[in-house]
């Protein structure tokens, strides 16, 4: 029951609340409040001012949350608020009541005003109808007269036109006389519609006459267009007029364009003549400058023509651009040809300069073509071409030099020091060629026509790259020349030329020294020059990696030196092989003299020495080293040991003890470093070859079995070699050691090792020496 009672109460309260809230909150548009359940669930004390306020719940909440004191306080607060609300409510009622009263007043006033309106409106309608009827009357009365006037007017116009047409031929003639073509064209075009309509009947004569006149006009106009002397404006106007006369202007355009093209072709011929001339700049300077001026004049003319054309024919720029670009292209084609013919940089420069002036001239006339950019692009290509061709020419030069000597080395041994000459020449061709190339580039950069100024950085880069590439290729070429097959060398020409020819050992030596020279002298010098080149511009760092290139050259220099040594030792090996293959060592006869193969060996060594002497520098440490090795313990100890060994061997003849002894000897000796690093000096190379040959000697000996005489023969030969090799070689200790080794080895391989007595050996050696010196003397006397 309570619930039922509560419900109406609630309704009432709610209405009141709505009213109040409509009064207090200006915005009524939030009635869509969340459902009650949700509100009750999330109720707080703040909900008191919302539409969905639930008093019971609020009370519960209040009781739950507040203390007694709080509640009391709240009570006081609330009762105060309720009082306030009551007074507000009263105020509200009063205000609304006032509004209502004023509204009724307004309605009453409106009713009164509306009463007189209708009569007024009726009066207005009446007046308007009367105005309309009067105007109709006026209109009808005037209609006839107006029509008549209009007719008269038309006739008059027609008459005037007819008059005009009859007058047209004479008028045109007059115009032709006074060259007022513009008027003439205007008249004629005005008359054409009539001619078209009635030309075949009434105005036949007239039409014919005027057409004749017009054809004269057209002719005159064409003449005007083609005449260069007339002002551009007049020509442009003439073209406009021709266009109006339905004359096919395109033909004209094409014709004129052809003319321009022809001009270009002529111009180019002239240009070719020009570029063919300056092979020798000093002599042809006058000629050159003369032709330059004529060239300039003609280009100027061309530019003017283009300017005219452009003015005359609108929208012709693309064509003209093409034309201008053609001009530039032709220029650069000519340059390309010149580059192919190995033009000098001064000439290239001159050509570029001419091009640049041309381009500037053209650019003035035809900015749309952006010829400078276009020219720049082409210049880039041209300069790149130029650098490439310069370097390839350099390479060719060097290879030519080398090749020349490759043949002369074989054929003309009469020349004293052919190898040295080859080395010097190739050195010179490398350094001089590079320097010349650099000079050329420097000139190119220093002279600096505007065109090149923009390309400066690029050019320097290319020069750097070019050098790098050049040296790489050079190295590849050297390797190829020396017969190392696994180089993927690009230049087909060089490959073809070098194939099938075996390089001489001497040339390998030349290459070895040449690479050393390039590594140690040429590259640093070129690097310096390059540095100064790029320093002038103060732009980007060195693109080259000289260390890398130096490394390449160093390694190939070493490999060439090794190759030389290899080739030489191979030759000696063959010599030794023959020596050991020929006799039957087990049945060898008693030695009577030093075997003649020693002479061959010496000959070979002499040849090597002469080659080496020509090419390689003397070792600075030569003396020093010899002293050193003399003073060292190895050799001083090895010498007495050797003698002892020979003695004991002759006494005991026991192979076992020999072996043991040689082992012991080796123990006491330092391990002899036979295969040391080769240096680029005469002594080092010769010593290495001698050492390798002696080692081969030993190995050959080990493969044989000797009788006593055979052993003695070897002993004798070695004894002889000992005296002769001493003078040649640097590392005496090692050579001595190897000579000993040969004797020991042959003793080991001997069935009956009984050495020759030293006096006998000395005598035989002396005899041999005397004989050879005699022979030498004979040869010299001859």
């Amino acid at each position, binding site marked *: 029951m309570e619930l039922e009672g509560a419900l109406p109460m609630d309704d009432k309260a709610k209405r009141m609340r709505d009213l109040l809230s409509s009064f207090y909150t200006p915005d009524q548009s939030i009635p869509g409040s969340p459902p009650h359940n949700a509100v009750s669930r999330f109720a707080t004390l703040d909900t008191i001012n919302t539409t969905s306020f639930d008093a019971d719940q609020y009370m519960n909440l209040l009781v739950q949350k507040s203390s007694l004191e709080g509640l009391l306080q709240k009570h006081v607060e609330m009762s105060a608020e309720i009082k306030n609300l009551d007074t507000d409510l009263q105020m509200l009622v009063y205000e609304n009541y006032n509004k209502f009263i004023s509204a009724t007043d307004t309605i009453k006033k409106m009713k009164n005003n509306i009463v007189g309106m209708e009569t007024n409106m009726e009066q207005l309608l009446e007046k308007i109808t009367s105005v309309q009827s009067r105007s109709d009357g006026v209109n009808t009365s005037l209609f006839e007269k107006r029509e008549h006037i209009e007719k008269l007017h038309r006739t008059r116009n027609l008459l005037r036109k007819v008059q005009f047409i009859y007058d047209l031929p004479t008028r045109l003639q007059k115009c032709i006389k006074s060259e007022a073509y513009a008027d003439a064209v205007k008249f004629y075009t005005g008359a054409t519609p009539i001619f078209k309509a009635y030309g075949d009947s009434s105005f036949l004569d007239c039409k014919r006459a005027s057409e004749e006149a017009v054809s004269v006009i057209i002719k005159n106009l064409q003449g005007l267009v083609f005449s260069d002397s007339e002002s551009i404006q007049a020509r442009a106007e003439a073209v406009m007029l021709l266009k109006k006369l339905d004359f096919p202007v395109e033909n004209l355009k094409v014709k004129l364009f052809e003319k321009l093209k022809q001009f270009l072709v002529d111009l180019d011929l002239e240009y070719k003549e020009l570029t063919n001339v300056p092979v020798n700049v000093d002599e042809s300077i006058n000629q050159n400058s003369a032709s330059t001026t004529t060239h300039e004049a003609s280009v100027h003319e061309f530019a003017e023509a283009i300017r005219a054309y452009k003015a005359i024919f609108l929208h012709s720029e693309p064509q003209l651009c093409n034309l201008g670009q053609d001009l530039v292209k032709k220029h650069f084609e000519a340059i390309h040809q010149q580059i192919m013919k190995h033009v000098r940089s001064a000439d290239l420069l001159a050509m570029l300069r001419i091009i640049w002036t041309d381009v500037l001239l053209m650019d003035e006339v035809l900015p749309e073509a952006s010829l400078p950019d276009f020219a720049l692009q082409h210049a880039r290509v041209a300069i790149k071409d130029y650098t490439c061709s310069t370097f390839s020419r350099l390479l060719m030069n060097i290879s030519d030099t080398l090749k020349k000597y490759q043949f002369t080395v074989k054929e003309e041994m009469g020349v004293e020091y052919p190898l040295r000459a080859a080395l010097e020449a190739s050195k010179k061709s490398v350094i001089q060629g590079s320097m010349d190339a650099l000079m050329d580039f420097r000139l190119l950069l220093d002279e600096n026509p505007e065109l090149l100024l923009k390309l400066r950085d690029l050019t320097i880069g290319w020069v750097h790259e070019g050098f790098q590439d050049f040296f*790489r290729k050079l*190295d*590849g070429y050297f*390797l190829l020349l020396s017969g190392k*097959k*696994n*180089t*993927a060398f690009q230049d087909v020409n060089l490959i073809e030329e070098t194939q099938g020819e075996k390089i001489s050992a001497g040339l390998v030596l030349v290459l070895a020294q040449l690479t050393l020279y390039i590594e140690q002298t040429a590259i640093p010098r070129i690097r310096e020059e390059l540095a100064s080149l790029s320093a002038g511009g103060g732009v980007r760092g060195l693109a080259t990696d000289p260390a890398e290139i130096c490394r*390449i050259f160093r*390694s*190939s220099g070493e490999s060439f030196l090794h190759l030389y040594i*290899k080739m030489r*030792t*191979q030759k000696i*090996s063959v010599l030794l092989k023959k020596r050991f*293959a020929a006799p039957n060592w*087990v049945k060898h006869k008693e030695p009577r003299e030093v075997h003649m193969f020693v002479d061959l060996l010496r000959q070979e060594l002499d040849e090597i020495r002469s080659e080496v002497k020509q090419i390689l520098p003397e070792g600075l440490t030569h003396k020093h080293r010899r002293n050193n090795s003399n003073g060292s313990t190895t050799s001083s100890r090895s010498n007495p040991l050797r003698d002892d060994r020979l003695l004991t061997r002759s006494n005991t003849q026991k*192979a*076992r003890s020999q*072996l043991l002894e040689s*082992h012991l000897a*080796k123990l006491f000796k330092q*391990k002899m470093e*036979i*295969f040391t690093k080769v240096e680029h000096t005469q002594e080092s190379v010769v010593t290495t070859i001698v050492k*390798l040959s002696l*080692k*081969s000697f030993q*190995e050959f000996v*080990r493969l044989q*079995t000797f009788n006593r005489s055979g052993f003695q023969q070897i002993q004798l030969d070695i004894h002889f070699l000992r005296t002769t090799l001493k003078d040649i070689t640097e590392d005496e200790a090692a050579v001595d050691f190897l000579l000993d080794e040969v004797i020991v080895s042959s003793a*080991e*391989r*001997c*069935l009956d090792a009984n050495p020759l007595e030293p006096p006998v050996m000395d005598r035989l050696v002396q005899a041999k020496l005397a004989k050879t010196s005699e022979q030498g003397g004979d040869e010299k006397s001859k």
Partner: protein
Amino acid sequence: MQGGSTGIGYGLKYQARCISDVKADTDHTSFLTGTLSLKEENEVHLLRLSDGGTELICEGLFSHPNEIWDLASCPFDQRIFSTVFCSGETYGAAVWQIPELYGQLSSPQLESIASLDGHTSKLRCVLWWPTGRHDKLVSIDEHNLFLWSLDTSKKTAQVQSQESAGMRHYLTGGAWDPHDFQMVSLTCDSSVQLWDLRTMKKTDSIDRAHVRNVDYDMKKRYMLVTAEDDSGIHIWDLRKLKSPVADLPGHSHWTWTVKCNPTYEDLILSAGTDSAVNLWLASPSIHDHSVQDSSLTSQNRTEPLLNSYNDYEDSVYGLAWSSREPWIFASLSYDGRVVVESIKHHLTR
């Protein structure tokens, strides 16, 4: 790494040139070597690597009538081997058998199974049929090639066919192709000759002077490795004989012998007269020559030389891989010193 004192040494009494792996011995890693002494009694040593791999034990010591220039172990019977011997003007080749119970005898004598007589010039080497039990043998002298059929039980050897290589060619050695049993390559003065044993005719040749030694790659068919006096080591493809597929620098003096590893591809061992043994890895990248700048790529290539063993007193002539433990090789220098080395730590790379 240099110097390689890791090796296990064994000293022969006299100088020696040849060493051979005993292939048929599957229980032990053993090697046979023979001495080269003109005046003393020559010996054949049977060496066995102890189980721990720390010691070389002499299992047997047999006297041999002449100095031994070549020695090859039979691939199917560990007690059989062949020697080529020579002293002064006499030369010959024989197949020997190590006597049973040789450990108990005081001075065991080798039993001669067969004597390969009939050669008219200096014998160079004897080759066994590469693998398996087979009765074929090839012997090479300076001018001729003999194909023998050997009966080990009857102890006889008969010439099956023989052919002269021509008097102008001085044969120096050879190798039997492990992939094609009909093919044998012979080295001579000016070339490497490839022979077909069925027709006994030369089928092809590599024109190359001063070839000392030749060996087939056990793993890769058509791959042949040659050692040359002065120009190092070359690897050939038998299908393209114009130029070698790869070069290795070789030794400071002559490269005397090359041996391909029986198990690991591209692993090559070479010995030279510069008293060194070099271990090479001919990596496949070297086979590819299409690269542009050789000097540049040589940098990028891995260095082919894996190790150089140069702790020898004299020239190294003998070299043998163990087929049982393929990471072990034996080397023999002229002063009679056998050194066995393991390359195990190089394999991990």
